[in-house]
């Protein structure tokens, strides 16, 4: 599997660390309430199909990436730097 890092180019999966759903970027306010935090930390859409998840280019440039992928085919559809309009 290869992911095209916006900075480094196409790289082998072994260079990346996987975090999970890109939802992790949408941190609720401290007082957002139990449900909001349950949704944020534990509950997942977990789609069989297109998903957005977070990868860290650990053995590369150290960038956190938002990757749009298909969980059935492993096709990588889009990769953006986290924090740069990726949400």
């Amino acid at each position, binding site marked *: 599997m290869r992911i095209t890092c916006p900075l480094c180019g196409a790289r082998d*999966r*072994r260079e990346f*660390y996987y975090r*999970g759903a890109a939802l992790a970027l949408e941190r609720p306010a401290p007082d957002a309430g139990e449900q909001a935090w349950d949704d944020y930390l534990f509950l997942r859409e977990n789609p069989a199909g297109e998903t957005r998840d977070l990868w860290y280019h650990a053995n590369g440039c150290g960038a956190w990436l938002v990757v749009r992928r298909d*969980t059935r*085919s492993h096709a990588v559809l889009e990769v953006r730097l986290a924090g740069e309009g990726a949400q």
Partner: protein
Amino acid sequence: MRFSGLRVLKEGLTGNRGWTAHWRDPEPKPAYDILIIGGGGHGLATAYYLAQVHGLRNVAVLEKGYLGGGNIGRNTTIVRANYGLPGNSEFYSHSLSLWEGLEQELNFNVMQSQRGVLNLFHSDGQRDAYVRRGNAMVNQGDDAILLDRDGLRKRVPYLDFDNGRFPVQGALYHPRGGTARHDAVAWGFARGADSRGIDLIQNCEVTGIDVANGAVTGVQTSRGAIRAKKVGIVVAGRSSQVAAMAGMRLPIESHVLQAFVTEGLKPVIDTVVTYGMGHFYISQSDKGGLVFGGDIDMYASYAARGNLPAVEHVMEAGMALMPMIGKARVLRSWGGIMDMSPDGSPIIDKTGIDGLYLNCGWCYGGFKAVPGSGDCFAHLLATGRPHPAAARFRLDRFRTGVGIMDEEGTGAQHNLH
């Protein structure tokens, strides 16, 4: 038909013409008391215990493919009860007690082999963590033995004790652990459930779950609508999709775990070895293949196949731990879809919808749980109350923080367990 050595002899002498179907292929009825979505190990075991323990017959198992085609058809067959935390402790202990004697109960040889499970440690810290776990196992009434280097060397002399990157100091030994023939477990439970009148319906994909004023009324399938008073979802890696049919979001992320088998070899590994530092575990099947695996690929996936980095990591770990397997050739690799939960422990519980029940979150440890999970889920479906051995497998534990069972201590990141 009852199986026995005598029957095999008789059939052999009469040209094996008398063998009959191990299960029927019934047409789905318009309605059942209980529908079980998923004809994998857990679903089939649930069906069996519903009939055997609770005397329920008006039950159907709906399987979108073939019976036993889920993770029970593609795992590394390890059976053990070596957990450390309350909740897991009593459950896996219960499950192991059901394994022992399963052949006789099912009249089907699932080839359970209590060849022991070794968890290696490499530092004082790891040793103490295993001692804590082992003591929990003994507190639970199960068996655990602390082996030092020499004791371990006698048991598995072929480990690389001295040159390994992480020298082996000893192991937590669980003699009652071992392996079983995975497909046979599914077939044995299927045959047992079928012979007790339960309908096993293959090639029947559930496409919708019908809910009316907060209660489940049945399901839509590729073979038409089926009504039911109760519905149990037990579909492992597909849990999120099926739950979504009832408008639910689950604390589950689906990941791929690869496993491997080598060409057949004469007996060389007579136990199960687990190498913590390398995420590597191995045993040898009765056919002679080395069956082994490691950690998940670490990205959400429904492809049921993985990639090379995970493959190579497993092989490197194998070479670091036991370089004598180097000349064994990997014959086949495959992947299963693991329903990873936020604390690495499963869920067997009611849902917010009356009559809809959930059994999921087994991560990559579901095989050994098959009898226990079936028994506990059947108990919940039949009585509406949790089985004492599974009372802590609650769906709401993450929201409340009550009774979280994070054996790995890695926190709320689904893929880290």
